[in-house]
């Protein structure tokens, strides 16, 4: 049974992804920040990491880079909502999530999912990374 690590600072999102994936038959671990995720990976390397790219402290792109370096075998799905975020979210020079998604793809994320995604989209992405 494939192991999937979900990283999202939004508890609701982490939980619903766990529900979807467990129902599809995957073993799921959910963490809410990058350092906890790295700890979980160190304890038991998963087959797939699904990570939000925009998180406090260490963001998703950084996490993907570290994973690429230390665990090149782990496949990554980057997820994010569109729009702007951060302290300048409502200013013209706010950070745009699509820039982060592009960076995540560059850092090595094999799949990109834009929130809100459908259940089928999520499962399809996971299945593309875990063909068996």
């Amino acid at each position, binding site marked *: 049974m494939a192991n999937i690590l979900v990283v999202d600072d*939004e508890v*609701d*999102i982490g*939980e*619903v*992804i766990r*529900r*979807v994936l467990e*129902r599809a038959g995957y073993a799921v671990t959910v963490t809410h920040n990058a350092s906890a995720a790295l700890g979980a990976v160190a304890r038991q390397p998963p087959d797939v990491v699904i990570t939000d790219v*925009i998180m406090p402290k260490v963001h998703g792109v950084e996490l993907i880079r570290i994973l690429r370096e230390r665990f090149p075998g782990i496949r990554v799905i980057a997820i994010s*909502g*569109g*729009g*702007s*975020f951060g302290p300048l*979210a*409502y*200013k*013209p020079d*706010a950070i*745009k*999530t*699509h820039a982060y*998604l*592009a960076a995540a793809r560059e850092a090595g994320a094999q799949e*990109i999912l*834009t*929130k*809100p*995604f*459908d*259940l*089928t989209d*999520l499962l399809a992405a996971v299945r593309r990374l875990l063909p068996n």
Partner: protein
Amino acid sequence: MGRLVNSLRVRLIGVMLVIITALVPPLYLGVSAIVREGYADRFVNSLRVYSRLVADELETLDEGDFDRRAVALLDSVVLSGQVVFAEISDDSRKLHSSIATPLIQGPLRDDFHFGDQGDQVYFITHTVKRGDHVLVLRLGFDEVPTAEQIAAAERRVLLAMGVFVLASMAVAVWLSWMIARPMVRLQHAAQRVAGGDTQAQLHISSSIREVQELNFHLEHMRRELVGTSERLSREIREREVSEEKRLDLERRLQHRERIATIGTLAGGVAHEFNNIMTPILLYSQLALEEVPADSAVARDLTRVIAAAHRARSLVTRILTFSREVETQQPNVFPLRAPVEEALALLRDIVPANIEIVFTAPQQPLLVRGDASVVHQVVINLCTNAYKAMGRNGGKLGVKLAAVDDPPDGQVAPGCYHLLEVSDTGHGMDKSVLAHIFEPFFTTREVGEGTGLGLAVVHGIVSSMGGAITVRSRPGHGTTFSVYLPATRAQPQTAAAGIGA
């Protein structure tokens, strides 16, 4: 009155009148004196000759029966017509003409001046020698015919003077008119110029040098004035135009700022919103799989999911408009490809009573960007176009063209490819046109339009470095012109189309 007296014409006539009235009496007096003297001299001279002849005749009369013969001579003299009194006298007697004496009334005095004494008779006395004694011949000549001649001559002089005065007056009036006319015409022309008709030329044909010069200088002055006023009005016009341009620029800037602000706000909201939407959508879909497919709960959940999808696409559109969706890597593609794909789609949607007319040049119009967003632009513009025509039908025109000179002020100078979408629908008035690119602005019924279609188009076109303009007249349809920067590079991949 003073106005009349001050007029040039009246003054000229007045001067002429004064000259004439000063000149005419002495002239008349002089001429009539000459006439009078001429007649009198001739009268007197002829009488002298006549009376001399009579005296000579008396001297040679026969002595025998002298008195009878003398009286007969005097009678013949009187009968000749000019003489009214004839008398021969010596110391002892007086012989009179037998017929002349009664003609003379009153006392007879010697009168050697024509016209004197008021008796109308002019007397001449001759001494006639007969042998040893001397006779005195006295003849009285009638002055009346000569006086009448003189009077007639004087009347003719007077008449001539009158004619002269009248002619002089006529000449005076004519002269004053001749002199004053060009001045008056100049004055009228100058009045027209002063009244605003600056093109009225000051051209007076006059042979008077001063008038010609006055005319020349006035015309010169007028041209200067016209030049100055034209320069001034041109400057004012230019200033108005530049002010208009400035206001227009300001309006466009404000408009752009407003759109940017809304886009920024939307971007900020979108991130949070998408995070919130994710569990809603996923939990609903999870729950849907837990319940029987034909249950009421399944139906409700399907509705929740559909609503969540609508919400998602709304956010996507907002982000498209604010250029915050992740677009594909820009590449070079022919403009025609996404337009034709969009039109193929539209032909199934657009009602049959609307004719779609697509025109494009032979050569490929290459642009750089994401072909799928151009597809979106065509869909949005054409959807608006056919909805504007409604049930009446009409013509939906889609045109592609290369333009070297985009409309001034809309985009930077350069080569552009034009995508034009026109309809023959209801058109829009200015108040609507001012807001069409703003997000959430719609003229359709609530629920029919999101008010994002044109805002999205605006966002896409701007992100491609292009511009969009619109022309519309209520009742005559609308034309949207999208200018996309032309590029010369060849298409990078064949997969420039949609859905790649």
